[in-house]
């Protein structure tokens, strides 16, 4: 199974991988996660969620009521201040544990690079075996800015000591959903 390969490869580089069979389960996981990180508290830390198919208008409305610190307006400021960024990735690549996104819209990049934690939603049926098939699926000709993410931000520039979270997120949480809504 490609998802098993993905999980092994992604966890090997420090990603956290979850899988849900239904949207609702994924959603309640996200809400719980946000609450645990304090996002639901008044004047607590914030989270930013970039527009994506998973985030329907109805869910948005419900979420605003449940999670105080959750925001949908994405700017340098909101993204830089946020503790958590949420976005939906377009594909996953199994043999390297990579997420891929057609990220021409700046908001998509801001939420995945400025906050400390990135929650990445992706459809289980969008897992591709490798880079070759991925680049056949989406040619850079048809994408202004194609982003590939494999684990959290890392460096080994000081004495080769692996350190997580330099300029990008220190945690990458991948949430697979089996039956995404259209």
């Amino acid at each position, binding site marked *: 199974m490609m998802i098993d390969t993905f999980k092994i490869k992604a966890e090997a*580089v420090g990603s956290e991988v979850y899988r849900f069979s239904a949207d609702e389960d994924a959603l309640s996981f996200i809400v719980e996660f946000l609450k645990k990180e304090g996002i639901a508290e008044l004047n607590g830390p914030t989270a930013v969620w970039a527009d994506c198919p998973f985030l329907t208008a109805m869910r948005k409305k419900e979420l605003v009521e449940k999670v105080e610190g959750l925001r949908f307006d994405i700017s340098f400021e909101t993204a830089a201040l946020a503790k958590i960024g949420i976005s939906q990735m377009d594909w996953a690549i199994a043999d390297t544990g990579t997420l891929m996104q057609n990220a021409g819209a700046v908001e998509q990049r801001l939420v995945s*690079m400025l906050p400390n934690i990135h929650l990445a939603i992706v459809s289980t049926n969008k897992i591709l075996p490798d*880079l070759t098939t991925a680049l*056949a699926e989406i040619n850079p000709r048809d994408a202004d800015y194609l*982003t590939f993410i494999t684990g959290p931000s*890392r460096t080994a520039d000081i004495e080769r000591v692996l350190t997580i979270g330099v300029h990008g997120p220190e945690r990458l949480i991948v949430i697979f959903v089996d039956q995404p809504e259209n």
Partner: protein
Amino acid sequence: MSSQLRKRAEEAMAQKTLTSALGSFSEAYVVSRAKAYEGLDFEELRNSIADIKGKASQHLDALAEQFKKNAEARGAKVFRTSSPEEVKKYILNLAREKGVYRIVKSKSMASEEIHLNYDLEAAGISVKETDLGEWIIQLAGQRPSHMVLPAIHMTREQVADLFSKEISERLTTDIPKLVKVARRELRKYFFEADMGISGANIAIAESGTIVLVTNEGNARLVTTLPKIHVVLVGLEKLIPGVQDAVPILKALPRSATGQLLTSYVSMISAPTPNTDGTQKELHIILMDNQRTAMAADPQFRNALQCIRCAACLNVCPVYRLVGGHVFGHVYTGGIGTILTSWFNLMQNAEDIQGLCITCGRCKTVCPGKVNIPELILEIRRRIVQKKGMPFIQKAAFAVIRNRKLFHSLLRAGYLAQKPLAKDGFIRHLPMFFSGLAEFRSLPTVAETPFRERIKKIKQPQGGEKVAFFAGCAIDFVYPHIGEAVVKVLNKAGLEVIFPEEQSCCGTPFRGSGDYDLAAEAAIENIKALLKDGVPYVVTACASCASALKLEFVHVLETEGKTEWIAQAKELAARTYDFSTFVKKLVDEKRLTLKEAKHLERITYHDSCHAKRFLNVYEEPRTLMRKAGYDIVESFESDMCCGMGGSYTVKQPEISSRILQRKLQNIEDTHADMVCMECPGCIMQIKGGLDKTGSKIRVKHTAEILADNLR
């Protein structure tokens, strides 16, 4: 090598933190690289990269035009120039026009190559490097010492000092905390910047795409936050199609950092919107700076296949001792020497090329199949062609080339050494030669050379004949190895003849860049060895075997002596290294080993020429195992011993340090004997073990086998 460079190298080697950091890195690297390539066919992968980049290098102009057309069609501005000055002018003009005062950069070796920061800062613009390592060295006012890990030469204490000064707060040496400081400080610059400058790891012509490979995420910020993005790309990064990027993206992270893929890869094909709804300005500068000239050079075009992974530095026995700064320029190590000779000046490479010991380890791991040692030799050849040989070396070579004079001098040497010699070793030398005997005892010249001794051996007559090529070391220093070879071959019923006209194989000449002399030596030996029409030529020196089998043809081609090529190929076909030949005899059942059990423990040292040039490493192990020895592998058994022919004379300090590691690794096996194929290595290792008073004996494979025949 200039005394200045020598001083720099010595100073670097004296820095314990540097050498221990690089040493442990080089050891860890081999392991992580191997793990990253598990399940992948490296040869197949690098063949495809070499093919893609090799072909691309022959169409740089067309690819650049195609890239320009496609990128411009999608809204980027593409500027092509051959000159570094034009690059700087373009960026400065753009900055002036757009009112740019603050620039953030993600790592770009091309910008280092042309010292871009210097000019930008001189124009009053603030420039911040945002790759952690690059920022560290920017704060320190230094150059990168490694292409992938620019600050690998610095300690956490040094980094803490730099950061403390930068933010006026005393910081501890806690690395995660230091990284957090960098994150916090650089964030400010990202948000304030009016322009982001990046390099590119790949440029795809078909789609007008630039590909950025990073781990920290700074390239994403540099290419997203400021409203202007300038990309500086060397022409050699161009490839034709999107799928051509795949093998490079597979190899680059694996070879650079042992990762399957870096944390981030960005493929940018068009300007994207800013948060305020305006469109980003995307400027792509395609810089030639000698790449086209390099591509037109039949030898050096090969170096354009480099993907800048720095694997060659990581496995280099010299780099791990001296680090990157000794190379004195932005591109470091062997590949850096080659790139510097083109992108900057040949003059800059003249000195540093002498650091290469030509052990060939780098070329075995190069994902672009760049033959680095060969290109270093080519630099040497061109320097010698242009400037001639240093006088003393030329005089010495003239002597070696004059066979009769050389032989009589060696005889005189035997007599002169007498007061210094004891037990076949010279342990101290007077005056200025003393450096050579400081870290290892030197062997004495034999009383009777092999060419005389063989005449006294009673050999089987009437059977098949083998011509023996002794090489200088066996002929004059280790004749007993020659006798062991004869004993083994006689046992198989073969008669060994010694063509008297043979001379030095020419490796020292070629290694020093004197191809004229190397070609003369090749021709003389071809004549001598083919004269008798003997079907086999056997040599027990791995370096000589490489010369006869591989280098003669190359040297004669380079020197335009085409009339000798056919015979050189004939000689190459007849030539065998000792172990391969004996293995063949055993397989053909013409020779039988005693096949005892648990005789002694042997560790085998892979001579560079045997392992990486002749591809011989299984044969000797198989034979010795068959004879009944237990083979215990040493750590880094195929690492150079530091001899490198005349290298040990030219760079005694480096040679000695390489040897120390080798000796330690041999000692750690607790073997009874260490065995090898090359008399050069024997000279170095035997001398080293004698100096340390080790109990481990040093033998040539032939000596071992000669005692174990049925």
